[in-house]
């Protein structure tokens, strides 16, 4: 009787272990749902990133090309240089109004030469094809090279922003008809010129190096001057925030005694890291401009504000980097007779430098893209049309900054400026990307595992 088998519990339900019951099925279904939900969240985030990048690239790339019209302009000596000396300072008396009729005539002649029929009797209407700044451009080039006077010279003149938009798909016949400036007949003429290769879209270096232009000449606007403004601000940040931030981190990590005062500093730093950037703008306005009477719109003031903003961003990673240096290094240095200062500055700090640098670079990239505080210290609304006169002047003369310039363009009425704003964003992101890649490379290069 000993080998009588006891009935196994599982046989009672007549079901194999491998066959899941209803509850288990439900739980497994829930499990896979939950997993899909998580994956969906990650994918949604990545999807937003892709949309963002795609719209920046799609909208911004056209800003780097510009439409030019090639016109042979006759430069009559009797009108441009009455004395015949070819002296640029004398020829300066002829204003852009003196050049405008020449361009208008040149356009009429070109159409006649090419056999393009146009309904325009008046050259002035025809000149709407070109940028308002075309005459100034011709004048500038003639004054630079006075030998051109008396000859017929081929000029590549900027097309007006609407013609430019027509070739970029921003403007079509319907919207032209609704607008006041151009008529569909202008587009016919432009198409005819385009067929003959006289209107062309090409790369526009002026966008990267040029200055901002007034409201009615978006085709001339560029980011060059505001980029300089940003660079001057970053110089101020590098000169002030980096030494102060690293010094503060060294003090807190290596020297500070554990007391109330140290706690106060630490609490302050962690709170400053979370203060909204606009509040730093208010500080800049009240402290630097109202109280200390520093000039408005100056990169120096912007740099000071960004310095205060990026200090916590530098101090916090720098402390982490210092903390990561193992105590054995310190003990070894002290053991062979170094003083505490020597231990810190000759051993710990150099070893922590890669980590510190990474933090510094990331905070600089952040400072480069910061906009809100700059609005309050007057870096918006100022048209950055002049290059600074020299190195020191660059710090104090009014300027814009790249993100402030983008904001300025996004507020203007003409949609042609939106394209510029997207283009400006590409320039900004390329700079930030370059800086971040530098940080990654530095970290890879010098990273040390203890």
């Amino acid at each position: 009787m000993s080998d009588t088998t006891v009935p196994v519990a599982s046989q009672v339900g007549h079901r194999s272990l491998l066959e899941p019951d209803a509850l288990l099925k439900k739980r497994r279904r829930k499990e896979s749902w939950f997993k899909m939900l998580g994956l969906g969240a990650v994918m949604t985030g990545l999807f937003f990133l892709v949309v963002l990048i795609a719209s920046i690239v799609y909208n911004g790339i056209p800003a780097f090309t510009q439409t030019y019209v090639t016109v042979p302009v006759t430069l009559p000596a009797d009108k441009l240089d009455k004395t015949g000396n070819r002296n640029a300072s004398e020829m300066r008396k002829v204003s852009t109004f003196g050049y405008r009729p020449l361009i208008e005539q040149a356009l009429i002649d070109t159409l006649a030469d090419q056999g393009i029929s146009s309904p325009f009797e008046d050259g002035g209407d025809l000149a709407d094809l070109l940028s308002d700044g075309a005459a100034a451009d011709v004048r500038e080039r003639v004054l630079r090279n006075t030998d051109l006077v008396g000859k017929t010279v081929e000029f590549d003149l900027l097309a007006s922003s609407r013609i430019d938009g027509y070739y970029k798909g921003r403007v079509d016949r319907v919207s032209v008809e609704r607008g006041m400036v151009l008529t569909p007949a202008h587009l016919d003429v432009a198409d005819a010129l385009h067929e003959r290769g006289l209107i062309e879209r090409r790369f526009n270096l002026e966008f990267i190096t040029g200055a901002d232009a007034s409201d009615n000449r978006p085709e001339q606007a560029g980011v060059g001057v505001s980029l300089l403004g940003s660079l001057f601000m970053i110089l101020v940040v590098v000169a002030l925030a980096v030494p102060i931030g690293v010094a503060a981190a060294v003090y807190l990590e290596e020297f500070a005694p554990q007391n109330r005062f140290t706690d106060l500093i630490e609490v302050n730093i962690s709170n400053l890291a979370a203060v909204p950037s606009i509040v730093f703008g208010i500080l800049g306005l009240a402290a630097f401009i109202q109280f200390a009477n520093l000039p408005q719109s100056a990169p120096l003031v912007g740099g000071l504000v960004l310095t205060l903003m990026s200090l916590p961003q530098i101090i916090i990673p720098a402390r982490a980097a210092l903390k990561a240096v193992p105590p054995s290094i310190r003990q070894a240095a002290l053991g062979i007779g170094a003083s505490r200062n020597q231990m810190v500055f000759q051993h710990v700090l150099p070893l922590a430098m890669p980590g510190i640098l990474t933090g510094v670079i990331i905070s600089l990239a952040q400072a480069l893209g910061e906009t809100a505080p700059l609005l309050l210290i007057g870096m918006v609304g100022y048209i950055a049309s002049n290059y600074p006169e020299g190195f020191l002047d660059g710090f104090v003369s009014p300027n814009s900054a790249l993100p402030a310039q983008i904001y300025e363009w996004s507020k203007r009425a003409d949609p042609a400026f939106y394209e510029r704003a997207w283009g400006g964003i590409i320039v900004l992101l390329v700079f930030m990307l370059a800086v971040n890649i530098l940080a990654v490379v530095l970290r890879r290069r010098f990273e040390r595992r203890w």
Partner: protein
Amino acid sequence: MSFGTLILAVIVIAAGAFFLSRRKVLGLADGDRRRLHSLPHYHGMHALLLAAVPALLLLFAWSVLQPVVVDRTAVSHLSGENYDTSGERSLAMSEVRRVADAIDGLIKGGKLNSDDLDGLSIDDLGRRLEETGIPVLADVPPQILDSARTYRSASAAGDLIKIGLVLLLALAGAAYGYSVAHPDLRARNRTEMGVRALLVAAACVAILTTFGIVLSLLFNTIEFFRIYPAHEFFLNLTWSPSFGGGSDLGIIPLLWGTLYISFIALLVAVPLGLFSAIYLAEYAHPKFRSVAKPLLEVLTGIPTIVYGLFALLIVGPALSSVYGRGGLGWMPSDTAVITAGLVMGIMLIPFVSSLSDDVINAVPQSMRDGSYGLGATKSETVRKVIVPAALPGIVGAILLAASRAIGETMIVVLGAGAAARMSLNPFEAMTTVTAKIVSQLTGDADFASPEALVAFALGMTLFVVTLGLNIVALAIVRRYREQYE
């Protein structure tokens, strides 16, 4: 002597002190470095610090304080009914500064002899300025001219004294450093004390900054409440500033807009961020995680102006084409609460996810193992064990994200609209505290008017609210972390 040259002069003096002192101690020790108390360069550094630090400190302090003192002297000339309020006086002072600058320009251009200035009447000055093409100062009262003269002479005197004192202090420091230089001098200890003092000073910049923020907000806020009643500001339900005066400056509609937009942003960011964090921490293959996590974090690195433009030109029109006039007709314009909230939510996804990732990873593995051992599935473990254990940290992360959302400026300036409105419809344009700070301070308004000063009161509110949120959030996160460590 300009600021730059003065600094350069101090540096040159300090460098001279360094080399001379080092040579002196080496000379006294007959060139035998072993007889020195400290390494030779410490003896040099000792003199260098003595020469440079006090002089540079004086220079900076003087440069900050001089304009204040000069303003006060110049303002004493402005008496009478036109200059009663501080606003009128500050306007008059900017006029004084402009006149003084114009006079400087004339003297620089050789159009005016500085000796003739005292006899000059206001009409003469106006005429001369007109000749040089400087914009004419129409109807400058004689008081302003008097004041401008005082301003100029006081600034000139101040500059002169500054240069003298700074150079004197640098030279005195250098001389003292050189005179005490001796092989037995404890130069290293003294230098290290000096360096440590500089480090402390650098660490104190953080305190000074907070102090500066509080002071600049506080003074102007008090000034604002002096001309505009506080209960009106906190309780009035309309916001309609008019630069002519008599404006309603109630903060409630702005707070409503701020909170509504932040709420929508959190509604987007919290579920997406939290689920991303859970997936990346618990489910994802390490390879997927190493790609997806940095990519998501790119979203935090993108400047807010980019998000602002994205809201204004992409998201706004896209939403408008569905819910706007062409579609359902709920959305009167491209800029709306939903536009700004959605874009801000996208920006905050990685913020929430990386903070939650940290706290989820901080939950000890033993708790997971225990749950698995009892037969729970992964999702059950997450929902019933990990999330409850990490809840305080997650709440902290959400509070930090909320404080970010409340303080965000560029997205709402570009994407939320300009009208202060209290409505429940998320498709309507509303405005926020930050957007109004920008618009009140970037106009041409007089700084002393309530319409401009209100921005400081708004800033104060913002500062207090975000600070409170942060302190609470950090306290929660910290307490939670200590639990498991």
